[in-house]
């Protein structure tokens, strides 16, 4: 009898914990499902392979940009160079791509390395210059943007059709390739990072840098790793948009800097660092892109799209902050 009660209590605790810990990420998924439902209601063809594929493709660059941002935000930092790294890697890819497949794979590797290098540069300056991430990445954003313009002064370049097909078409005519690619990136890039000791230290650093340092951990290395991961994921975003547009454009990434921060916040990751993850970011990315689908079918002037995106974001952020009303010492809100 008592054993039953304690089992029940343990289950209840586990459930409450699950709800509490995933409150904000959960909100992001709820927002996404609401928008999916509205989309489906407005567009009877929404759940067909072609529409789903194009929806997924439209969201994917933003999702990778958001993942890049998440990696840095977890340390308590912010990366304003996400957009320019996308521009740079897109421009680089459009100049490097040869016609043949092996050469193409080589080009992809070079582009990924370039992105990681950009992230490393950010990290090195932040860590060893002891400077604020927002200032450092504001400056490097201009530099990376400048390099992108140097590589590709005018839009264009060559991107082979096979590359577009692999990333943006459908597998067996049914499954959006971009979704499979996202899954692959999560499994091969993010999860190993998140589950490693290094990933644990990155989160620890974001949670309480002094305590992490006092535990004998190399805080600098953890931060460098997070910034490099940010650069690498931004390069993946750059590679995806290259496939999507089949061309290079030095200004293609600009919009993604602020939008990446928006989806991180929508996804429930705290800008103070130490908590959150990419699952919320992914839901946030889809949410932001699904709004445009709704506006299109509701015949709203496309120029008003930013207004509605802003409204949805505001509602989500306010809902996420609602728990502030349970704070016991009002001074805690300010400190």
């Amino acid at each position, binding site marked *: 009898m008592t054993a039953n009660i304690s089992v029940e209590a343990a289950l209840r605790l586990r459930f409450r*914990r699950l709800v*509490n*810990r995933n409150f904000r990420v959960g909100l992001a998924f709820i927002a996404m499902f609401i928008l999916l439902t509205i989309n489906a209601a407005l567009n009877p063809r929404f759940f067909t392979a072609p529409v789903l594929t194009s929806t997924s493709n439209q969201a994917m660059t933003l999702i990778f940009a958001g993942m890049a941002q998440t990696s840095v935000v977890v340390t308590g930092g912010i990366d304003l160079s996400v957009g320019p790294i996308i521009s740079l890697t897109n421009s680089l890819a459009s100049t490097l791509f040869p016609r043949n497949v092996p050469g193409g794979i080589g080009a992809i590797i070079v582009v990924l390395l370039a992105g990681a290098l950009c992230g490393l540069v950010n990290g090195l300056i932040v860590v060893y210059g002891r400077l604020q991430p927002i200032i450092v990445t504001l400056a490097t954003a201009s530099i990376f943007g400048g390099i992108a313009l140097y590589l590709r002064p005018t839009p264009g370049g060559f991107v082979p059709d096979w590359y577009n097909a692999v990333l943006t078409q459908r597998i067996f005519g049914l499954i959006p390739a971009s979704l499979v690619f996202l899954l692959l990136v999560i499994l091969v890039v993010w999860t*190993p990072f998140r*589950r*490693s*000791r*290094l*990933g*644990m*230290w990155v*989160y*620890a650093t*974001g*949670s*309480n840098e*002094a*305590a*992490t*340092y*006092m*535990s*004998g*951990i190399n805080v600098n290395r953890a931060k460098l790793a997070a910034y490099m991961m940010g650069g690498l994921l931004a390069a993946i975003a750059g590679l995806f948009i290259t496939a999507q547009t089949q061309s290079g454009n030095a200004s293609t990434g600009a919009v993604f800097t602020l939008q990446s921060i928006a989806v991180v916040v929508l996804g429930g990751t705290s800008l103070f660092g*130490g*908590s959150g993850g990419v699952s919320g970011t992914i839901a946030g990315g889809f949410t932001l892109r699904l709004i445009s689908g709704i506006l299109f079918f509701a015949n709203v002037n496309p120029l008003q799209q930013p207004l509605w995106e802003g409204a949805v974001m505001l509602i989500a952020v306010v809902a996420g902050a609602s728990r502030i009303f349970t*704070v*016991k*010492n*009002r*001074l805690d809100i300010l*400190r």
Partner: protein
Amino acid sequence: MDTPPLLVQVTNVTKRFGGTVALNEASFACRHGSIHALVGENGAGKSTLVKMLAGVVVPDSGQIDINGQLSTMQSPADAARLGIVPVFQELSLMTSLTVAENVFISNPPHNRLGLVNQRKLRQQSEALFADLGFSHVDPDALVSELPLAQRQLVEIAKALSRHPQILIMDEGTSALAVHDVSLVFAVMRRMRDEGRSVIFISHRMDEVKEIADHLTIFRDGRNLGSFVTGEVNEGQMVQLMIGHSLEEVFPPKPEITAPRQPLLEVINLSWDNRLNNINLSVGKGEIVGLGGLDGQGQGELLFALFGLLNGITGQICIEGKPRHINSPSVAAKAGINLALIPEDRKTEGLILKMSVGNNVTMATIDELSRFGLIDERRELTTIQRVIQQMQVKVSTLKAPVNTLSGGNQQKVVIGKWLLTQAKLYLLHDPSRGIDVGTKQEIYRLIRELADQGAGILYFSTELAELVGMCDRVLIFYEGKVIRELVGAEITQQAIVSAGMGLNATVVEPIEK
């Protein structure tokens, strides 16, 4: 025959922080297999000594030998290599990580690729907690989900997971529940029996008597003597701890001729287990001290009165009228007229980068404005009046307030509230970090405020201040007022022994 080297041998170390000497040619020794308590008043140098042993603070001069080897520790990592692991009072956990992750953060179980094995991590934590008797702590919980008392256990478990030769605890048990204290004591005894040592700071005399085999008394940065526990009685310890080195000049206390008119009455005030049924009153012109160990609810009481806490129960009456104070702006309003001189003036008392003048008029700028515009001429004369009255030493009123010395900054904080014509001042360590001369001016000012009819709640961690300034002292213990000392009863001995939960009458002063 050679005697084996002592585990810890500290010889003539000195450490200065700015102008204050935290440790003054202090020596200390601890042998293998010992539980060694450090006792002394706030600022006696215990914490500095312990931080030095943990590699957090590097001595200016002197020598530290560990196991007979001269040590050159420069960092916590160096200390850890020598087997010294600290548990500090300020919690140093990563709150958004799980308990298990926190405990094994520096070396989690992992495979060849560096991936952390979460299952093994949990098993290791469970095994460690079972071994320590901490099984009621859930390794899967996030630290932020744990109550404060359990966080301290996690902190201790984290230290013990590194198998220290020397475990250092700075008030490590102060946040623990009673049952958990006995668990920690059991672990300490086991360490002792294995030939390892524990050096711990405690303000709880009953704890020291129960667990320590040796104790060392610190005062004013010096070691006043090490004893085998039981060799000295409590009276002697208290006498050694307070000494008579501090000669402060306090303004004379007034003779009470007529009963004071009540100003503040607090009835059954409670909040979140940290304030339990507080009843107290402050009369007009009265200075009431809040004494006891650090963190027994005194600070929370000031916060509660100033409207900073959510969910308080009980009643607060100002001049006989029940008042519902739910924010500082309400607390400062006419009719209530409270003023808080906060613990940390740099973050909560002043806006450091704004000018002295702006800080002075911060709370009264509405009254100095007409149609929403500041009447600058009136503001200037007001500022000048306050600066003169408070004798703030400042070259220009436009100077940012952070260019002032600590004492002058505190005068600005007090001056700000003078302008609101506050009736009741809530003081939280008002003389902290202030030089002796300015301290005396501040003491005089506080007494003047009282003489002009204000009531004062005076929370201080400095005993001499409570004795020198207060007409009454309320002793706090675990969120309750456990004793009231009035008039001649207010002595350092009485405050110390009452604050530790001892009966004051037991303590007889010893002859020197």
